[in-house]
């Protein structure tokens, strides 16, 4: 571990917050194409609902398109079309040959084709959301396909999921712990999930949310705006105080955010 890396993954050691305003990650390279954000996670964790919420929140602000990788070709794409959150011309479904993780990680060609077809058909885009099919905790996106990835788990999957870790929980650029409104019903301890996520993820941000209570997934949408702004070379110049790092927010569960000054979600800086 590098000396300047003051974080420790050991749960027994108190977790150290990074300096506010210091982004622990190198900035995304400036892109001359749409930012691609992967959204993965286990079956039923709410990926499609999150995509729908992000479309609601962002479709009026960003030039947006969605690629879905459901195990069944058009299931998720149809859900989005029915939900009416995005014009159907902005949604493509990719067949995955029974292997959703292969299509997003090992052989990304069909997804790259889908992204390029959307760009060809729609003109320049700001953001492409690539939704994986429901898979297991090891399924992550190839860096050849996406620039950033969100991993979605839900409290109903058990509060042990963050502790179990796996590449999705541990390395995703953003971990979303979904359906917090169900926590009392399923006996999930959000504090335990928060502690375990911190231990697993170091400085990487985690957002607790309930789309039932926040249909626009405000905190995640803010994070996405931030990523898009960074890729455009915006946001970094004035990033002092912009706490990309270690957001630890708890949106929606009680109708408001627990974010404090140092722990607020990423600032949606400079996005049209």
């Amino acid at each position: 571990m590098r000396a300047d890396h003051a974080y420790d993954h050991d749960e027994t050691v108190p977790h150290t917050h990074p300096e506010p305003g210091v982004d622990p990650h190198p900035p995304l390279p400036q892109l001359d194409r749409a930012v691609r954000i992967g959204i993965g996670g286990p079956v039923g964790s709410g990926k499609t609902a999150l995509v729908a919420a992000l479309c609601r929140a962002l479709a009026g602000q960003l030039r947006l398109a969605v690629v879905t990788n459901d195990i069944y070709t058009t299931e998720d794409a149809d859900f989005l079309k029915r939900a009416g959150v995005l014009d159907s011309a902005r949604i493509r479904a990719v067949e995955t040959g029974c292997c959703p993780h292969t299509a997003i990680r090992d052989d990304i060609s069909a997804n790259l084709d889908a992204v390029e077809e959307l760009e060809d058909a729609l003109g320049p885009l700001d953001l492409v959301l690539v939704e994986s099919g429901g898979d297991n905790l090891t399924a992550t996106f190839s860096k050849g396909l996406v620039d950033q990835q969100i991993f979605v788990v839900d409290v109903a999957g058990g509060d042990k999921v963050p502790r179990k870790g796996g590449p999705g929980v541990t390395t995703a650029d953003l971990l979303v712990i979904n359906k917090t409104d169900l926590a009392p019903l399923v006996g999930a301890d959000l504090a335990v999930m928060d502690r375990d996520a911190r231990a697993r993820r170091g400085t990487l941000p985690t957002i607790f949310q309930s789309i039932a209570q926040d249909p626009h997934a405000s905190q995640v949408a803010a994070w996405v705006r931030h990523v898009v702004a960074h890729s455009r070379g915006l946001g970094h110049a004035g990033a002092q105080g912009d706490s990309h790092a270690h957001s630890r927010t708890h949106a929606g569960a009680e109708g408001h955010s627990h974010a404090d000054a140092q722990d607020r979600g990423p600032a949606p800086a400079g996005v049209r």
Partner: protein
Amino acid sequence: MHRTAYLLLADGRFPSGGHAHSSGLEAAVAAGRVTDLAGLEQFLHGRLSYAAPVTAAFTAATHLSAARTGSAPSATESDVTVPFLSLDRELEARTVSPALRLASRRQGRALLRAGRNTWPSELYGQLPKHPDGPHQPLALGVTAAAAGLSTEEAAQIAAYGVLTGPASAAVRLLGLDPYQVQNLLARMAGACDEIAAAAAAVAHKSPQELPAHAAPLADISAELHATWEVRLFAS
């Protein structure tokens, strides 16, 4: 020297989009025509007798055309693009199902993407432009040439891919014993070698003389499959 390149390109893990194509097996399974290992064996024999000669011959002919360009610096670009275009049109006329034409071009586009990144070459740019991509056998022939393989190796990879694609899909769709499926493929190896050798042997012929085997159910079930609301494989 290039043996590893040969294995790389033949490997099912080469990221060229093949994992999402069952080459008609998903439709055959849904129609109840393939339910077990014996059905898969019949299916694969059909694919080997009908699809592989065409695929392998067009791959080999493209390879030969590309390799000749590479070894003859005096050849002008039109020397090679005319045969490529002719190969493209002849293969198009052999692929009567629009769904299969699209599947072939999508796989060709994916292979081209992988090939360009793995073995960069100017040859890829000489393939005829088409919005859905080049036909897969043309993309394979050019990629094999860029990788430094022989015409025989290109044909062998093509014939082998005709078998392994649906075999792999069968393991996923039917839950067949993977050892039994590998045993089946091993038993078909001799037949596969023969088809590949025959394809390489006709690679020098004019495109219109290349094999044109048609399998009615391949076309019919590809079109039925394309109408499904819910499918696991792209073809």
